[in-house]
């Protein structure tokens, strides 16, 4: 089904329908409370699955290495994605460049379970994101604020992640973006219905979606946090701030003991409101990834600025 309506999905018909808004968004609902881990090999994917990841993100280089290596970062090699799909039984996600709908078509043909149209890769289009309604495979997109999240949803995104600053091991931008999104939702809640039209204009987002968020008090799709989570406490922080789950990129496989850290972050994500469990999970994890101070990052190296 190629519905262009972002509103609540319709009644099921007698004939099975794939790719509906409800099965795309519903897939993300199943991931809630979980951790999605970046992996670059089938072996890492298995470690992630063993640790209790709800899904893995298959990519060629983790963001920390993309930063280090520079150059153009693109969709991963299909062989590498196939290898990871065959290695694990949990869902597999993969990244396309922003606006590179052909990379997305390739990922769909490979059978990935979710496509991340990601600012971590080098954008292919500086004006347009991909039309995500055109795909059966659901999409997750990053956002730094509510307007950006709603524009992505209007384009068909079935899940949103706050962007943070990938590959830094520094949670500060993740906190900034999640607080921004949650804060703006809170403000919409307080508006009179007469004020929602002007709010939509300010947010540069469709009025219908703005109205829906004002009524629901949340996005109409699942909201995860990404970009800078490196410790169990970081993951729990994002959940206490309102993320429904977390993406962990470089934080696991750039650390001293990935298997142990991965399991610890899973535990802390489930018991995000229990400091005793988080404390236990935080013991003896070995070295965390080194991390980068975001205020020393030049503008051109800030991935969160990519996408509009």
């Amino acid at each position: 089904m190629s519905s262009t309506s972002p509103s609540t999905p319709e009644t099921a018909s007698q004939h099975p329908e794939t790719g509906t808004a409800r099965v795309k968004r519903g897939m993300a609902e199943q991931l809630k409370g979980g951790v999605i881990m970046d992996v670059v090999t089938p072996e890492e994917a298995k470690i992630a699955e063993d640790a209790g990841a709800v899904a893995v993100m298959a990519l060629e280089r983790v963001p920390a290495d993309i930063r280090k290596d520079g150059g153009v970062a693109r969709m991963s090699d299909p062989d590498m994605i196939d290898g990871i799909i065959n290695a694990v039984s949990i869902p597999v996600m993969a990244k396309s460049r922003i606006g590179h709908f052909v990379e997305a078509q390739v990922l769909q043909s490979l059978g990935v379970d979710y496509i991340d149209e990601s600012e971590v890769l080098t954008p292919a289009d500086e004006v347009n994101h991909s039309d995500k309604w055109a795909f059966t495979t659901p999409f997750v997109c990053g956002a730094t604020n509510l307007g950006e999240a709603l524009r992505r949803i209007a384009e068909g995104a079935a899940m949103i992640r706050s962007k943070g600053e990938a590959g830094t091991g520094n949670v500060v931008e993740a906190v900034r973006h999640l607080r921004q999104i949650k804060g703006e939702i809170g403000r919409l809640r307080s508006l009179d219905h007469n004020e929602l039209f002007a709010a939509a204009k300010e947010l540069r987002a469709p009025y219908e979606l703005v109205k829906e968020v004002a009524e629901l008090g949340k996005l109409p799709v699942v909201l995860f946090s990404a970009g800078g989570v490196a410790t169990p406490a970081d993951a729990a922080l994002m959940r206490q701030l309102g993320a429904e789950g977390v993406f962990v990129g470089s934080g696991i496989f750039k650390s001293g003991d990935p298997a142990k850290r991965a399991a610890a972050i899973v535990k802390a994500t489930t018991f995000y409101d229990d400091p005793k469990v988080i404390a236990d999970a935080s013991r003896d994890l070995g070295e965390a990834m080194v991390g980068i101070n975001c205020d020393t990052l030049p503008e051109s190296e800030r991935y969160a600025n990519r996408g509009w």
Partner: protein
Amino acid sequence: MSRTPTVGVLALQGDVREHFIALAAADAVASPVRRPEELDEVDALVIPGGESTTMSKLVGVFGLLEPLRERVRAGLPMYGTCAGMIMLADKVLDGRDDQETLGGIDMIVRRNAFGRQNDSFEAAVEVKGVEGGPVDGVFIRAPWVESVGASADVLAVHDGHTVAVRQGNVLATSFHPELTGDHRIHALFVDMARER
């Protein structure tokens, strides 16, 4: 048994919130369960949709496996959707080798049997014991029931595959009524909790 039962939702991972909403609509009080002692406060338990390998791992890590198995044996009403159906199966195919289930229904369930996400679908499903026409079946990387024992009752079939089963106080569906606005199956389960 009180007239308004308290129904726990196993809240380790998955679509817990949607079950809370559906249970409230079906006149139950919903309560999250993440710790063994929280099981003492519920009259019934929902195992939500989610990732079954993650859920089974967390059930083990947080000491819930044996307490949950005891509750199943003692007849606590349980309802599992999708991953929850897998958790309530005596045997799982295409799972991880170390994947533990609670059991409760004498059935063999095949994980992700309907395919990957691109094969996820919606279809109308007739469910035995649910009046008023078919329910909206939302199947997401869904399992199906490969075979059931004599004591289990098949409640729904889609495309030749069993997708809803009840055995005694334990109910399981391959699909996710909690993702629809149709709360009839939750109402059926809340009735089971009330009758116990």
